[in-house]
């Protein structure tokens, strides 16, 4: 009898028993990322285990490595909040020197990457270390209790961007670290989402297989910080793609002019010129994404704030060369 091959390896590196909240999208992302890495290492080096992880302080670190336990079935190192990329540089250099084949996976949250870890990340990319940096973007500092980061989107409630009489919540547009990483002209940069796990796995594998530095920014949901239903993580992440909030793209060899934008699904109409996506007409309003999350609840009392958000999203797409139309919900 023919046995169907599972779509991804059954090997586990991020083992059950970690202490993440129920429904944590970031835990899903790490599990998929390490599986993808393992497959890539098997294909590239013939050894599925040929990797080590250097991880920044943050939720995914504190929930996975509480002495005397560990959720990690791969060599794993945590040093501090801002230096996953620098620590990974050191591990990579050591492996190179002792002739150990394999690749280093650096992992950081949005805080440890977009804010305090930005310098170390830039240094690691620029020095061309053979490291994949995975930024799991839950769009706030969750480990310290949901404070805003520069990757927090406009309008979101956090404990340091509370809506109030004089505040709409977070009042700055999201910083897109993937584009900053691409400016280093590294071999591979991508955005991904747990809302499209197959695409995420494909990209992680690609990142793991290039020679040189790669950067992947994956949106992953955090029911605790987003005040969203535990079971709806993947659905919410998919809505982010389908409403235009979260673009999926790849940039290879730093060629920002040749950015590969992916069709979002959800009925969106994509216009291409010479194979290249130049315009997207989204069918689902961003409200569908927003309304499942308590962090945006206050915006529904001020719909003009959601319009500001729409304009910011359009501007972000324009930066990557795509004109988008974002519908308003039908009255």
């Amino acid at each position: 009898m023919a046995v169907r091959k599972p779509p991804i390896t059954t090997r586990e590196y991020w083992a059950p028993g970690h202490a993440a909240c129920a429904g944590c999208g970031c835990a899903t992302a790490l599990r998929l990322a390490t599986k993808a890495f393992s497959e890539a290492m098997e294909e590239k080096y013939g050894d599925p285990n040929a990797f080590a992880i250097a991880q920044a302080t943050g939720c995914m670190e504190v929930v996975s490595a509480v002495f005397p336990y560990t959720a990690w079935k791969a060599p794993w190192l945590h040093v501090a909040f801002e230096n996953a990329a620098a620590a990974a540089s050191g591990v990579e250099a050591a492996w190179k020197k002792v002739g150990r084949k394999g690749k280093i996976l650096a992992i950081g949250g949005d805080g440890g990457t977009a804010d305090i870890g930005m310098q170390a990340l830039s240094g690691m990319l620029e020095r061309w270390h053979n490291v994949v940096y995975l930024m799991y973007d839950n769009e706030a500092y969750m480990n310290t209790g949901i404070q805003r980061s520069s990757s927090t989107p406009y309008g979101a409630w956090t404990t340091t961007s509370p809506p109030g009489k004089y505040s709409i919540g977070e009042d700055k547009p999201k910083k897109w670290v993937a584009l900053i990483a691409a400016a280093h002209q590294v071999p591979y940069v991508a955005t991904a989402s747990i809302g499209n796990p197959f695409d995420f796995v494909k990209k992680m594998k690609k990142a793991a297989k290039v020679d040189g530095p790669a950067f992947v920014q994956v949106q992953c949901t955090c029911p605790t910080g987003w005040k969203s239903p535990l079971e709806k993580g993947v659905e919410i992440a998919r809505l982010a793609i389908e409403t235009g909030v979260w673009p999926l793209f790849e940039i290879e060899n730093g060629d920002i002019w040749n950015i590969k934008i992916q069709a979002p699904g959800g009925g969106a109409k994509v216009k291409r010129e010479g194979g290249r996506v130049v315009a997207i007409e989204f069918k689902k309003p961003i409200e569908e994404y927003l309304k499942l999350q308590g962090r945006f609840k206050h915006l529904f009392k001020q719909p003009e704030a959601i319009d500001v958000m729409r304009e910011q999203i359009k501007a972000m797409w324009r930066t990557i060369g795509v004109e988008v139309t974002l519908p308003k919900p039908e009255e």
Partner: protein
Amino acid sequence: MPIRKVMKANEAAAWAAKLAKPKVIAAFPITPSTLVPEKISEFVADGELDAEFIKVESEHSAISACVGASAAGVRTFTATASQGLALMHEILFIAAGMRLPIVIAVGNRALSAPINIWNDWQDTISERDTGWLQFYAENNQEALDLILIAYKVAENEKVLLPAMVGFDAFILTHTVEPVEIPDQELVDEFLGEYEPKYAYLDPARPVTQGTLAFPAHYMEARYTVWEANENARKVIDEAFAEFEKKFGRKYQKIEEYRTDDAEIIFVTMGSLAGTVKEYVDHLREQGIKVGVAKMTVYRPFPIEEVRALAKKAKVLALLEKNVTFSVGGALFQDFSRALINESEKPKIVDFILGLGGRDVTFKDLDEALAIAQKALNGEAVDEVNWIGLRKEIL
């Protein structure tokens, strides 16, 4: 055959690194130790040192990369000073807590503000509670030797702690002196390969390093750093003895000079010891009974040696290029701790001098001596004295 070359302490440190054969070096330039990574890059460029040299974007990343490499099981090296060391501060605790035997060469320099590139010991002194071993060199030869010894001690299984070796900014970093470069084969014998027992990132035997510890475990983890520092006392003596046997140069945690019948002993560190030795020779000619004790090892603090020293003198005059605000100098604190419960103890008088590259002259030392002599005669003196202070510009 060892060769003798005339070189600066920075070059001596680079030579020491070359001889120790670290596999990963990560460094970022800062005056006065810039020449260390420069010289090492030449060694690497010429194939004289077979190492990965990571030209990091900051000292924070330099030490972080060293932690990464050391956690992956290889010998590492870096060099820095002053603000650079301060930028490493957070990771210094982590390196010690993770028991990684990284070695740093530090060109001892003052800290901002005001910005000042010249010598004092405030940079390394400020890191005395990180768990790192600390050695201080009197001259360029010692800078080289102590780095080799630092590796030997740091990598000892009973220790497994990182170590820093300080040598004074400009006074040593930029001053040429003859230095004997030991034979590579002898150094290889002395140090051996670094074979980590616990720290490795090997997919064949995955380990988790740098975990979170709850209150149930944190204190024990900190205690092991304490214990390792305690163990280092003996290991350092053994390393000194072995070094002497192999290379003929003798080191002691506290080196004494003309202390045998001394009534006043000046205690100091680094290059200042050289100045004070000359000063003592000059006093001895006048029949004044003084001696010098040089702290070669500052962490672990050599408590027993300090107690033995204290038995010899009536006054211990501490000459310190650092400040622990509202207390005095760091040595003053440490000496007080070592002697507080001794039944018979000398008077301790603290002198803060030479900060930010201010020259320490015989005139300054005369000033200190006069105060120490008052103390010797039973007169009341200030416990903490700033020497060479230009009161007129205050």
